[in-house]
């Protein structure tokens, strides 16, 4: 019988997710042996027409990474949705919006001005800014417009499963592929990683006191974290408690606090507000004033709490001075 057809596609991607696949190393050969890769732009030359020729549902599974930012992205993912039995959002960008989602705190206009007008190294006396349509020496050239917001994949098409992480760890990818090949899949819409939060598997959780209190925030810029002690107990903001596990605690093993690339746990509606609630509750200040001064020490809440998930937060984007 024919090998199942598998497609990889990238929307707004940094290529890290492709690297993650390449990092399957030897195992990639097994995968290649088990499946028939019909699309993988980063490494294989395949044509749109090949894909278009497929019957709806002919592709067994399509992995899509990157966040959705262009009309072309939209066309491609809609077409792949139609051709595929399963679509899996691969990596933080398609799952949550990812770090590029931080642009949702700004607008396209600000992006263009910062890059082409305000940059110290730009030599642009005439204030040229790239335009969607241009006529250069009589040649008509067009450019896709820059969008104000980044969208998650499931804001554009129906997604069957999510493979979290920036980038997803190889073992999680293999598990997912294995589960798909065996047809042993959890309910549709599941995130293919453990439901518990990171503390569950965190090597430092043992060191966390039951009466944990945070009355002053530390920053890695000016303090060196103790690799033996829970970062929250030390006063470093760590997103572990409000973040799914399954990543292998890779950042923590390198002695850096979690930044939440796996996204919120199934029952938590918003990764950031949940963590605020938890760490603020763990203070001891007993006046509004002292509580406020503790809060002052928490720098850049949005950029920290929604490092990877701003487009999937409740508020979705910022509207300050936009």
């Amino acid at each position, binding site marked *: 019988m024919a090998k199942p057809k598998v497609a990889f596609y990238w929307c707004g991607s940094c290529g890290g997710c492709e690297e993650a696949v390449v990092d399957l190393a030897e195992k990639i050969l097994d995968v290649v042996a088990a499946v028939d890769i019909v699309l993988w732009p980063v490494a294989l030359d395949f044509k749109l027409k090949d894909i278009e020729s497929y019957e709806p549902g002919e592709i067994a599974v399509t992995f899509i990474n990157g966040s959705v930012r262009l009309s072309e992205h939209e066309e491609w993912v809609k077409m792949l949705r139609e051709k595929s039995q399963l679509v899996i959002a691969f990596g933080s960008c398609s799952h949550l919006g990812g770090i590029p989602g931080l642009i949702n705190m700004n607008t396209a206009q600000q992006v263009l001005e910062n890059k082409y007008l305000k940059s110290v190294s730009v030599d642009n006396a005439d204030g040229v800014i790239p335009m969607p349509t241009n006529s250069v020496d009589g040649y008509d050239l067009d450019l896709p417009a820059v969008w104000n917001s980044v969208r998650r994949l499931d804001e554009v098409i129906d997604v069957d499963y999510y493979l979290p992480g920036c980038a997803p760890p190889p073992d999680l990818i293999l598990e997912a592929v294995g589960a798909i090949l065996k047809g042993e899949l959890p309910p549709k819409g599941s995130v293919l990683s453990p439901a518990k939060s990171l503390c569950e598997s965190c090597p430092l959780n043992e060191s966390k006191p039951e009466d944990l209190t945070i009355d002053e925030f530390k920053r890695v810029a000016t303090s060196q974290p103790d690799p033996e002690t829970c970062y929250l107990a030390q006063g470093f903001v760590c997103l572990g408690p409000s973040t799914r596990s399954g990543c292998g605690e890779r950042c923590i093993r390198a002695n850096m606090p979690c930044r939440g690339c796996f996204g919120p746990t199934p*029952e938590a509606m918003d990764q950031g507000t949940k963590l605020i609630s938890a760490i603020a509750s763990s203070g001891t200040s007993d006046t509004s004033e002292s509580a406020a001064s503790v809060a002052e020490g928490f720098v850049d809440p949005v950029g920290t709490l929604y490092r990877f998930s701003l487009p999937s937060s409740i508020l979705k984007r910022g509207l300050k001075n936009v």
Partner: protein
Amino acid sequence: MVKLLIDGREVTTEKGRHVLDVAREMGIVIPTLCHHESLPSYGACRLCIVEVTYRGKTKLQASCTLPVREGMKINTQSERVLKTRRLIMELLLARSPKSPVLKKLAHEIGVDQARFDHITGEDTPLLLGESPSTIVGDAGCIMCGMCVRICDDVMNIGALSFEGRGAKRHVTTPFRHMSEFCISCGACSSICPTGAIELLRIRPHEPDRIPNEFEYGMSWRKPVNISFPQAVPRVPVIDMNTCVNFKTGGCKVCEDNCQVEAIDHSQKDTVEEVQVGAIVVATGFELFDGKELPRYGYGRFDNVMSSLEFERLCHASGPTSGHIVTKEGKTPESVAILHCIGSRDSDHLEYCSRVCCMYSLKFAHLVKDHTGAEVYNFYIDIRAFGKGYEEFYKRLLQEGVHFIRGKAAEVTDVALTPEEEGKLIVVAEDTLLGMTRRVPADLVILSTGLKPAKGADEVGRIFSLGCGQGDFFLERHPKLAPVDTAADGIFLAGACQGPKDIPDSVAQGAAAAAGALSLIDKGKVVLEPITSVIDEELCAGCKLCISNCPYEAIFFDEDKKVSVVTEELCKGCGTCVAGCPSGAAKQEGFEDVQIFAEIDGALLLG
């Protein structure tokens, strides 16, 4: 045991006792002046002599110091005895002719005329700054020495002693100086058979009397006393601050005299811990202090009194046994009752104290009834809200009590007219007549309002009771749970929850008791079904909830590596749920999804 005959009657008693005591037990009357339970027999006055026949010999002896003997024969009434006693009495009379006690006793034993001249102790010339040569007053001293002995042996003070010999012998202070040691306990004067001792001769100033708190200082009490007639339990208490025993270690006269040995001065305050299933808070109220409204002269004028002071004054068991009199002791001709003192006053108690109208009417009735004086009620409104109250009000109108609609403006003693002289004048606007009135009165009663008892706020904190209007404790629901509080198993009764009259307080007390009983009977409590639960499928054991719980209801299960809620301890505040970063904690009835739905609903409105 020894057997003996007294006045021909045989009696058996234990050895070592004195004849006097035995005889008295037999109901035989033997006069004596120097015999007292608190002091050993001394045989000073000799009045108790009897005729003793023992081993064939017969002689006269003082019975108070005469030990019983086997076969002893005693005659207490023989001619010889009576004759001798009369002689002794005459001699005593010569010492203190004026003592009423002595005179009375003398008369009883048939001495009406003393044959000897009056003898006193020697009056040697005084040195400067000395006290009088003797502490004895006109009543005269019979040298029984009981005062010296009780002061010395019993009170452990020794402020008194004898001085001189023979006819010059007399009782005085050391070196005749005013005593620095005397504590004015008054034991000497109270034990003195002739009532001759004058305390002021021992100590230059009046003994400190103890005001009776229950009577608002309108009468005095003893260190040992029963607080008030209705006290429960109705037993005497000893006031450690004033009892001599706690000052000198002496006295204990009461302890010695208590037949059932109920008194124990060595008792100390103790703190008892009692496990209970329910608590009824009934800390009551406290009267608004009239001094906060100086214009009514409370505390300045003797005859301006608070409602409770008057309550005692007109009470049969009160300081004047129910005689309504002014401080000067004369029956008033006119009495003013000022309503709403402190109550319904935006500067003080905003609320109506609810009971004042009715007790004021009662006062008016009593005054009228007892003294026939003119009674003037100064009122804003008469709130006769209860069963039979309105009728009572009508009755008073018929009794000719005056009702002046208008809150009294002030009470003054500045008389403008002759008939105001020497009286207190109540100034008020009579809003019905539309004129200012000056009403002279001998007695002014302030119908002061009710406020929560001192320390109620502390009690509130201990039992975590909320406070409502006027800082009275807050019931769980004004209509549906009027005796329950926010805290399960804690009930409210009486004025601590708000001003109440007696019937209402009794009713609420009963209700509170019933509420408490219903819990105790069940022997179990029903928890509200809103406790928190932690889904162990989702809990990562991050432990952040543990310090969040105000009740230490969450513990970390080391085996499962998850946090667990102890349902019995959980009170369902939901703090841990809000604080759970992974959403593993849920609160029954207040789950996130439910609240989100409520938010959606709320946003549909308006």
